């Protein structure tokens, strides 16, 4: 068996379209997931206690079950509770919820890692709670959670492949279709691997760049 590049070239438009879907779903889930995750972490920290319990239960369920099972339940079980979504919206929604749970844990540990004294200093200087959140908590947390966020964001890209199970026309689904049609699995999946890897590498580089930029701000004592 030879490595058939012609086959790959023929399918460039299809692969590009699928890659676009993967990128879109991924980016959307990262944005919605981090906003949702931040809201969950803030509510768990400063919201009323019962809300905290509910959110904690939500996070535990999402983290305690495979994403594959969640997306299956959402797509096939959703209609029974009046939630009928097309495959792309379902995929985006499911992945965003999944991301929100994980990101919220990252933010929560980030909040906890901010030395209490930094907040007390703001308190003594007359900051309101909102001012402390905006001027002290957010920036300090950003630098604390950056490595974990980059890591999770990379994992999320790989989770988009799971969406092939509900027929989201993303990279893995489309390329395996090409593979099946031409019986060329090695060629097609080599391309898939390269694309995912290229993207995660890019993401990792961006993360390291950001970390380097923030390194001046590192804590000078424990």
């Amino acid at each position, binding site marked *: 068996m030879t490595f058939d590049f012609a086959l790959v070239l023929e399918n460039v438009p299809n692969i590009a379209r699928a890659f676009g879907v993967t990128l879109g779903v991924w980016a959307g889930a990262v944005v919605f997931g981090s906003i949702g995750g931040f809201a969950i972490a803030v509510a768990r920290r400063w919201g009323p206690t019962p809300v905290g319990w509910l959110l904690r239960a939500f996070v535990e369920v999402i983290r305690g079950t495979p994403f594959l099972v969640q997306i299956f339940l959402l797509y096939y079980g959703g209609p029974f509770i009046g939630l009928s979504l097309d495959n792309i919206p379902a995929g985006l929604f499911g992945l965003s919820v999944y991301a929100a749970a994980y990101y919220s844990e990252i933010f929560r540990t980030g909040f906890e890692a901010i030395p209490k004294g930094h907040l007390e*200093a703001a308190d*003594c*200087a*007359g900051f309101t709670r909102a001012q402390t959140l905006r001027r002290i908590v957010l920036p*300090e947390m950003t*630098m604390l959670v950056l490595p974990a966020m980059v890591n999770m964001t990379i994992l999320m890209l790989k989770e988009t492949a799971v969406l092939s199970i509900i027929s989201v026309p993303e990279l893995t689904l489309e390329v395996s279709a090409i593979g099946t049609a031409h019986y060329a699995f090695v060629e097609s999946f080599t391309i898939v691997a390269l694309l995912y890897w290229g993207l995660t590498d890019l993401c990792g580089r961006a993360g390291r760049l950001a970390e380097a930029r*923030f390194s*001046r701000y590192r804590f*000078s*004592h424990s």
Partner: protein
Amino acid sequence: MTNAPAIRVQGLVKRFGKTEVLTGIDLEAARGEVTCLLGPSGSGKSTLLRCIAFLEEATDGFIEIDGAPLGFALGPDGDRMRLPPNDIRGVRSKIGMVFQQFNLWPHMTALGNVMEALVTARGMSKAEAEERARARLAEVGLAERATHYPSELSGGQQQRVAIARALALEPKIMLFDEPTSSLDPELTGEVLNVMRKLAEGGMTMVVVTHEIGFAASVGHKIVFLDQGKILVEGTPGEVFGKPRHPRIDQFLDTYLDRGAAGLL
């Protein structure tokens, strides 16, 4: 109001759960007076200071700053009544606090740390805040370090920035909780010198410290806490001179080998 003491603490009690950490503290500090709080570990020095800074809410008792009640006041029916947040903020703005761990904000330069509250909490223009911040940094000898981040400064420099940050808000009272305890010995001098200058300038100060030499030479009043109570209170001469309270003797034995013996 005008002849009220800078700080008046009356019957202050603080409990954490069932443990009573402060068991009825009465304390007054006149304007311009430097009060040094001494005592063994766990005696409640930090807790008392943090109550005065309103970082902890006392369980019972009252604190007045310049004659204005802080946090709680006696209501018309004789109950201890919580004051509205705006009142609390107003009274607290007269108080500056310096921590053992400096607590500078790591994502801001020295200048940024000193300017921040002026702009965010006091609504001052950036230009005006910067001018004031630079002046305060110069006073603590750090004009050249304005653009350095905390991670790029020594402990002594960080603590001086923290003092400048508190002073920028023009407090009437400065509270210090072991400001030199996390510094290498050769860096404590630069911080103590800044504090000495501040005291000479007439600032009302309450200082928790284990630097007996500083307490004896700069303090107007020494307050010795033991198990949540004021055990001895007086001028340095009265507290450290002979005859001495046996607990003070014992306490000094622990700290005098830090080279402070010659100062007494």
